[in-house]
């Protein structure tokens, strides 16, 4: 059963459509990544899931509960890290964790303190004296401490150094191992590819593609220069191949399945040179946003 689901979810501000007709679901224990450039609708989608925004069309549900109408019950089942997390500036790190731990029974101060130690955060410092990265770490701890089935993170690793990014990826893996579901948005394609099970790509407020990261990883692009004519691939392989040969004797083959059976056929072809590269999320992303991504 899906933990979170949207059905034709839309949000308009006057004539501007921030999100249009978005339908997807997230299975229990899955890590779902949201990709898209600024203004694509990622944050709007997350805020609709949290019930912060009233949909102008469609519906979002978490555990079958309407996100807007039953937001308090929904929030018992999730934790959230906003894109630009702001905390009470007068409190120090420990007081912040204590405050949020007291606010919800699903949270524990002990777990928060363990996370703080792991992320090497100085809890004695006041929030207003913290750097942007420190504040981000603190907010991340607030979001990851509660024992809830769904964690929603809006660009969790922005402002973090590479070491902490690696730690965050580790924490998300642990969340998955504990059976939690994670939805997170990011601009960092490599990070999404490393962590996520599935990715949805948004463009101008529309969901334009959903891919399984495992499927994307199995896809390869093969570029070859030919000395003669490329023979037809065996019937067993042909379904998983897109072959394009131009007039200058160059071939580009996109292989969607395992590479091993293909290599035998390639060895028999009149090739002057051969280059094989994994397609990766970048290619998926650039299909919809040609100049975007990092």
């Amino acid at each position, binding site marked *: 059963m899906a933990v979170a689901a949207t059905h034709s979810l839309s949000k308009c501000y006057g004539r501007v459509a921030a999100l249009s007709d978005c339908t997807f679901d997230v299975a229990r224990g899955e890590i779902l990544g949201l990709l898209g450039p600024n203004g694509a609708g990622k944050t709007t989608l997350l805020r609709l899931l949290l019930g912060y925004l009233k949909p102008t069309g469609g519906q979002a549900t978490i555990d079958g509960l309407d996100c807007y109408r039953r*937001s308090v019950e929904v929030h018992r089942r999730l934790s959230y890290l*906003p894109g630009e997390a702001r905390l*009470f500036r007068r409190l120090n790190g420990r007081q912040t964790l204590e405050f949020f731990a007291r606010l919800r029974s699903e949270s524990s101060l002990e777990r928060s303190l363990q996370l703080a130690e792991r992320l090497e955060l100085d809890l004695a410092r006041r929030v207003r004296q913290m750097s942007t990265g420190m504040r981000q770490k603190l907010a991340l701890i607030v979001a990851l401490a509660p024992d809830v089935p769904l964690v929603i993170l809006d660009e969790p690793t922005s402002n973090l150094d590479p070491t902490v990014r690696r730690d965050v990826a580790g924490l998300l893996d642990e969340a998955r191992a504990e059976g939690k579901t994670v939805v997170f948005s990011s601009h960092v394609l490599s990070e999404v590819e490393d962590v996520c099970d599935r990715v949805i790509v948004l463009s101008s407020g529309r969901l334009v593609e959903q891919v399984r990261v495992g499927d994307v990883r199995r896809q390869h692009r093969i570029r070859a220069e030919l000395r003669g004519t490329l023979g037809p691939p065996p019937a067993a392989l042909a379904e998983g191949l897109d072959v394009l040969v131009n007039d200058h004797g160059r071939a580009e083959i996109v292989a969607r399945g395992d590479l091993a059976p293909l290599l035998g056929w390639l060895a028999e072809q009149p090739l002057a040179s051969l280059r094989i590269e994994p397609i990766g999320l970048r290619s998926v992303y650039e299909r919809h946003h040609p100049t975007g991504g990092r």
Partner: protein
Amino acid sequence: MKRVLLVRSFLDSWLLLAGCAALAAAFTCLRVWVSSHIEIGAFIRFFSENLKMLSGLLPAPIEDLATPLGRVAFSFEEFGLVLLLGLWSIARGSDCLAGRIGDGTMEMLLAQPVGRLAVLSTHTAVTLLGVIAIAGAAWCGIGAGLHFSKFAEPPPLGAVTPGILNFLGLGVFVTGAATLVSALCRARATAVGLVIGFYVIEIAVMVVSRMVAGLDWMKWVTILSAYEPTMLTLAIDRDPAENWPILWQYNGLLLGLGSLLWAIAARVFCRRDVPAPL
């Protein structure tokens, strides 16, 4: 959970409250002490001969204001005291929603299993507690001022109770109005500007209604017509049986409108989108 929010809300603003209450106590104490030293006969003569045109602005005849009780009760009309009450109510009321949305803490709060109404009501409860504290501090200040005053026959402290109650009513109204504006705005600065602008317009309408004979109907369009602490204090001292009901009418209007505005604010906030912080 609500206790956690209440404590947080109080801790966020106890310093402002302590400052406003201390200043209210000090201001009223000094004000009463100074007014007991004025040679009032000369002042009445000067006012009657030179400033009679301004008599319409006074809340009661100058002779009544010159009595010890009149002089003490007039403290509630002083700009300084009303400013302190306004500072607290507007600062808190505007921070309640627009302030928290603007600074982003609302987003973190609402991500917890906390209802929007709980956030609003706990914040307002602390604001109203502060209004009571400031009124109480003003009352204590008046008591201290009377203790050290040079009035031949100082009025009893209990005689200014109508003024205190009317002052409290004004605090409730301003809290409700500021909360409503805060629920409608995204930025706290906008909310503060709108509430202060409204207050200035109300004062202008009040002055015009009192100064221009043909425009006295305008007193019906300003809420400040329900804030008459000096007139009510003097009238109730003169004839309690007849005038206490008038105080309840005035305060009923202030409390009723304040509560209505707060209820509208709650409805607006519970249905509005919570935008990303500025």
